[in-house]
């Protein structure tokens, strides 16, 4: 699935310390990740060289009172792969970002563990499910949520609780690989009910192709 081609990223965050931290984590990635542009404004993603980056890492809180949902929507509509990287740790924000078509949603406290993996997954158009997002999906009570099996919900919640796929696998008596496939399946179900976006099309198509989900399941 993955290849070793370098991934280009534009990072939009108004905090210099965060920017330098992100660049450091990318620097340690086994597969090259190049930050082609970084800045406090979403303009960076629309102007060269940021406009050609494979992945946009977007902070929702850009010095304004309201989260930058409209910027996210425009980026998604333009076919960009967006990783939302936010201070906000509530399920409402996470669900809204998924609805709008973000590739994934990460809280800042999860950055060190998950940002590199999430960026690579977004570049490859693979699903990625960090714990905070899993918690939000596991307790989602909205009417328009996709139908999840109880096992899928359980895996989501336990992944959120333990932040360790090994612990989840041990408790449920399954392999880490199976844990991953449950998480991926949930992500695809969400993509399937979401707004038409490149994320959705590619995620679902690939999942069906890989046999991860049945067309009848969706």
């Amino acid at each position: 699935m993955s290849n070793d081609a370098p991934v280009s990223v534009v990072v939009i965050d108004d905090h210099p310390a965060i920017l330098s931290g992100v660049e450091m984590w990318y620097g340690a990635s086994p597969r090259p990740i190049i930050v082609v542009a970084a800045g406090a404004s979403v303009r960076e993603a629309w102007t060269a060289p940021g406009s050609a980056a494979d992945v946009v890492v977007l902070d929702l809180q850009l010095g304004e009172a309201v989260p930058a949902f409209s910027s996210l929507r425009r980026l998604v509509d333009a076919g960009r792969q967006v990783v939302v990287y936010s201070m906000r740790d509530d399920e409402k924000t996470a669900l809204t970002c998924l609805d709008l078509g973000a590739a994934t949603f990460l809280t800042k406290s999860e950055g060190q563990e998950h940002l590199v993996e999430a960026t690579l997954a977004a570049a490859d158009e693979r699903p990625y499910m960090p714990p905070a997002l899993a918690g939000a999906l596991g307790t989602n009570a909205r009417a328009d949520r996709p139908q999840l099996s109880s096992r899928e919900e359980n895996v989501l919640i336990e992944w959120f609780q333990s932040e360790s796929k090994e612990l989840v696998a041990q408790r449920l008596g399954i392999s880490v690989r199976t844990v991953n496939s449950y998480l991926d399946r949930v992500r695809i179900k969400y993509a399937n009910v979401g707004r038409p976006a490149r994320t959705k099309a590619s995620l679902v198509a690939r999942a069906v192709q890989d046999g991860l989900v049945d067309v009848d399941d969706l």
Partner: protein
Amino acid sequence: MRIGGQEGNSERLVNRTVERYGVWLRSAVVLLCGALGLVWADASDVPRALSLLAPAVLASGLRLWALRRPLPLALLWTLDAAVVTPMGLAQPVLGGEGANAMVEVAVGISVIAFQFEWATRPAAGVALAVAGGAACVLGDILSSPAHDPDVVPLVRMLIQVGLSRAGYLIVRARARAADRSAAVRAALRREADVAAARRATEREYLATLHDTASATLLMVSQGDSRDWSWLPPRARQDLEALSAMPGFETGSVDLAALLRCVPEGEGQARVRLTTHIEGPLAMPSGPGLAIFNGVREAVTNVSRHAGVREAELRAWREGANGVVVELSDAGGGFDPDSVPVRRRGISGSIVGRMRAVGGTASITSRPGTGTRVEWRWHDRGRAPRTGDGVLQATGAPCPPRGQAQHTAAVRFIRGQLLYGSQLVALLICLVWQFTISLRRLVAHQDVYQPAWAQTAAFVCLVAVAVTGGAHLLRGRRIPPGVRGWCLGSVLAASAVSAYTLPAGHSTGPADWAFGVVGWHALFLLADLRVRVYAAILGAHIGINSASVVWHGAPTAAEAAVLGIATVGSCGLQLAIGVLMTHLLRDTAPAAGSAAAREEELRTRERIHEHLQSDHKERYRALTATTVPLLVGLGHGVLSPHDEEVRLRCGVEGARMRRLFAEGDAVADPLLNELRACVEVAEHQGVTVSLAVRGRPGEVPVEVRRELVDPVAVTLGRTRSAARVTVVWTPGAVRVSVVGVDCADDRTEASAVPAHSRAADPHVSVVRTRRGESVWAEASWSRPVSSGVDLP
């Protein structure tokens, strides 16, 4: 309120008041009429009249006396019958023209009074009324055998008896309503008082715990290389502070664990203990600590006096709920009888201490044969403890009792009784007017001059009754303006009726108004002082007297008949007015005070009950875990240098912090209690991430305890980083903690009480361990129907 067939305070006092009142009224009337009758009787009839009246007067006197000293009911009834029968039969022999009217009045008022006197036994009252009526008819026949007995007075008597019974029933219904509502309000207030008292003790308990055990344990758990010499005395002090709190003895402690902490002493003074303890020996903490402290003292005695350095300590269970502990040495021994009184080691520390907690300690020793000390304790179930049931001894806070509450209760009872009285007066007005008065008005149309004026006066009185009744039945007071107009109308009707009645008819069969006007006035003035009512009655009588004089001065005999008729109607009305005032001004406050006293007692009982069970619950949770730790630390058996001891202290400290947070008024108590545990861990340098997902809902406090406890335990044993999460799904709450346990598996298992409490069947705890990572999750399946979601 009739709780279990018991009458409430208002009802009881109303019954007592009307009974006393009925007896007094009747006695007064009988004496007055008897005296008048004798004065007017022919000289030849006096002996016969006396022979009939004397028993009646005597019976009245006895009955009055019986108000203070209760006599058997049958005797009382006979006395009452003995009053009314001779009165009725005396008709032929009593004085002249007025005899008929006078006997009628006396018997009429008596049968009304019987309905009050025998209010709680209506059958007896009715039987007496029948006896009175029969005697009256018989007397009538005897006095004028020529014509048929007059039925009209009999019917009137019947109506009056019915009205008095109905009146009593109405007032009683209001009294019951007052009692019922007082009971409901009292129950609410009691709940509030009880809750306040419970909160107060809870706060005090938590404050003590915070200042003592919690502080000490947290210091130990954070401790690194420091000087620990302060610790043992401090731990012992804490233990004493806890033991001094009421209810402490109800907590349970494992004596086996305590006995393993008995210090053997240091250096030269050390006594090597061989222990044979069949544990666990769960028992109340009071006796448990008494045995432990006694054993500690006895071990010191071995090293001081026995001359040996070895002793044997045994402990075992005896019977279902007894414990025996035995300490023996093979030392020099002594003669127990020769120990000086001032040496308090044995008498105080060992024997006295055990006696205080309901156990025994005995010392067997002879010079040269060693010493054996034996402690025995048996659980006598719910045997009364000192202080149990004695309120003052427990120091239960008194319920706040304000004068305001009392006056509010009195005002309420008074309001109900007033309403009842007014309804009664209204009922009498209407019934009287449409039976007795209407019949007279219709039958004597040809007598009046002119008849239309009388009819207009009748309609006017009906209008007054209807107006007042409309206000009353809607539960409103009659406005002063309306009241003024109504009173004016009543007096005008009285005047019109008096002056359009031909001479000689006043108070006679044609006078429908004289007897009824007073009832209207009573109904209008029931809430004012009885003086006002008396003045209106006086005006009414004055108007009628004036009309009689205007028609021509009456003879003495006529005046006597008029006087008797006035006493018979207006006197009775005034008497009823006085009764109502008495009910409102004396009975209501008395009922209010009685209710307040009862209420205070009941509240105290409830508070006591609750405090006991609260204490029991709290200590059960603490003594099993905290007390052994403090005992161990206090006697140097557990060392603060030991990492395992520090971890245990950390866990207990976190548990206490959670307990402190339990009472906080916050929107999400579960999260609040978790934060309390997290703060303890963070204070010790653990990095904790706390995350919540889902919509918070309500969780009962017992369930919260079980949900949070695994977090307290895991955090208490973690020294680096941990993650705590709360997940609310529609059907469950899942509290999870992932930490890095620095101790090994075996000790971790011992820190988790396997036999903790009667766990909630809906709470399940799952633990997963992988390397050093420990993951504990407690989840509670929420009942689907329960729960208002918090906003």
